[in-house]
């Protein structure tokens, strides 16, 4: 995990100290460890001279900028209509059983978080899930479990 100040300074150097640096900084923190803590949001606000509430508002607007603790691997199953019709509910059920968590929860070892997401543009190959930045299309329950088991073994 990189120190948040390093990420902030690096992005400020690249994008300046104005508001336009906010998104790159937040994305940088999430890229590093999948979520942003309260303390980190305060540091970002201070660095860019923005109000803490404003930074919080921006972060919560974006689904992929989480402000609650997430696991090392965030699994996002597409919930939009094509994937729904292709059977995303069974995929979620299979993953819930394998990981022993409910939708929205994180495993006690902080390795996995199971979430739903809106359309990822893979409607022709649904159901689809995302594990961090990796897309897994044309899932079946067995396929999804096999993929996750590979991550468990990592």
């Amino acid at each position, binding site marked *: 995990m990189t120190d948040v100040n390093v990420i902030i300074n690096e992005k400020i150097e690249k994008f300046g100290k104005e508001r336009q640096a906010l998104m790159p900084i937040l994305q940088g923190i999430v890229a590093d460890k999948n979520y942003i803590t*309260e303390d980190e*949001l*305060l540091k970002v*606000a*201070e660095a860019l001279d923005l*109000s*803490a*509430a*404003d930074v*919080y*508002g921006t972060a*919560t*607007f974006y689904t992929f900028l989480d*402000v609650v603790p997430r696991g090392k691997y965030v699994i996002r199953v597409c919930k939009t209509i094509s994937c729904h019709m292709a059977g995303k509910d069974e995929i979620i059920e299979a993953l819930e059983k394998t990981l022993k968590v409910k939708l929205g929860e994180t495993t006690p070892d902080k390795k996995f978080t199971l979430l739903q997401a809106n359309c990822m543009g893979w409607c022709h190959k649904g159901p689809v899930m995302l594990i961090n930045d990796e897309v897994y299309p044309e899932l079946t329950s067995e396929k999804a479990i096999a993929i996750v088991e590979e991550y468990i073994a990592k």
Partner: protein
Amino acid sequence: MAKYEVNLKVNNIPVTVEEGSTILDAAKKLNFRIPTLCQHPDLCVAGNCRVCVVEQKGARALPAACATPVSEGMEIFTNSQKVRTARKHIIELLLSEHNTECTSCYKNGKCELQSLANEYRVNENDFIKLVNKKTYTIDDYSPSIIKDDSKCIRCQRCVRTCTSMQFVSALTVAHKGDHQKISTFFDKPMNAVVCTNCGQCVNRCPTGALVEKNYIDQVWDAINNPNVHVVVQTAPAVRVGLGEDLGLEPGHRVTGKMVAALRRIGFDSVLDTDFTADLTIMEEGTELLVRLKKALVDKDESVALPMTTSCSPGWVKFIEHKFPSLLPNVSTCKSPQQMFGALVKTFYAQKKGLKAENMVSVSIMPCTAKKYEADRPEMRDSGFKDVDYVLTTRELAMMVRQAGINFEDLADEKYDSIMGESTGAAVIFGATGGVMEAALRTAYEIVTGREVPFTNLDIVPVRGFEGIKEAKVLIKDVLPEWGFLEGAELSVAIAHGLANTNKLMAAVQRGEVNYHFIEIMACPGGCLGGGGQPIPTSPEIRAKRMEAIYDEDTHMAIRKSHENPEVTAIYEEFLGKPNGHKSHELLHTHYTKRKGY
């Protein structure tokens, strides 16, 4: 650059307005009322509630009147069948996400959404009610403000107020879509964040989502308890606002009627915060002169200048959060409310043969932050809670109605003595620049032995609604003991509204400006535009209240704080001298550094 004129028709009537005006402006010019919710005269355009939609000839969609600029040849219909149907649906959709338990709502009868629902005869059942499907929190941790998300329609007036007008940014829009909500940082309670309790959001919330925490029942209980002596004090700005909530036009001075109403409600002593406003001038004026002497004569570099006022509790909390390094610059004087509280349970109790433990001290304030101020742990110098309950102007109006008093027909009455005597200098505390003017009237005279060199004592440069005002007063021919001030030019500044305040204090912090004395009021226009004043508020309404305040000043027999006979008497009998030992015990306070969010 000259503005072009634009010709258009509203409901078939031609009208000409300036380029850049909105459809709403054009309709207003022809006296057509278009309903609005998110729009507010003090705030920037949002265009999110859609209640103001109108029909534009040739256009497919219905534009929002508040957010659409006029164009040449435009033909607008504000009340066509299409518009009425759309508006009704919009109101119904807003209601489907709004907790409509109107009978138990504090804003019942004063809610803009409720009155629109009434006007459009909406039937709530057309859309699925979403309120029951969500979990809402009611944040009532703050002693000043209650935030009830179930009543919020996300018009964002509060967010625009908190960020643009007040530069506090305690509130923000968090999440999106059906999860969108008005939130603080990490959805913490209002009392755990940077909120200054100024209540400007409460003044602008169209529903009951943001209201003051009311203490009406507690005050009735005290009044109905025969063993308790209930003392009430009324702030300067209440007397120019109260009438609005009781059916009178803005700008009515109702001092005498208010005193009469308070007696009829059942308060045992009806006293005036103006008395301690005058006392504040004595204490704060002396403090300023002492600081100036230390800086100029003793060359004491630890003296913090410019000195700022400390009457506005919204301002005090603002500086505690935002400029903690400048806290030594804030006058140590308590606000008039708290000076009054400390004296009423000591000096007043003594004089009237009352026991402080059997007294309840109530204050009527144009302010929600005063509720927080009264709750501060520092404010117990009498040995008890100095001010037990703080009511806003609106809460008092509610009590007047509850008591069945016909306010308009009341004959004027006078405040009780002692601690009921007031001067014009105290009255103008209610307007931005007023504390400065009162302080100058007294300080100049103490130092030179002459009245301030302004016609009729009216120090015009410090008056008015300009965001940041500056003035300079040359001090010459001083009395011998103030020789060090001979030829000095006293430089002062005044800011009202916290966005202006932030600008001014940032300049002070950077050392770009050199003032001796700064007056700050957290609310636009000063206390007359306070968060506890009647709703609605607008620049025009505040201007009327200000006229009334200066009118009241002009009509006072005594217009200088140091000439208030009760003030002279309390120094002789009880306090000794300004900034003396007893004063420091009861009338001065200290401040706390707070987190920046």
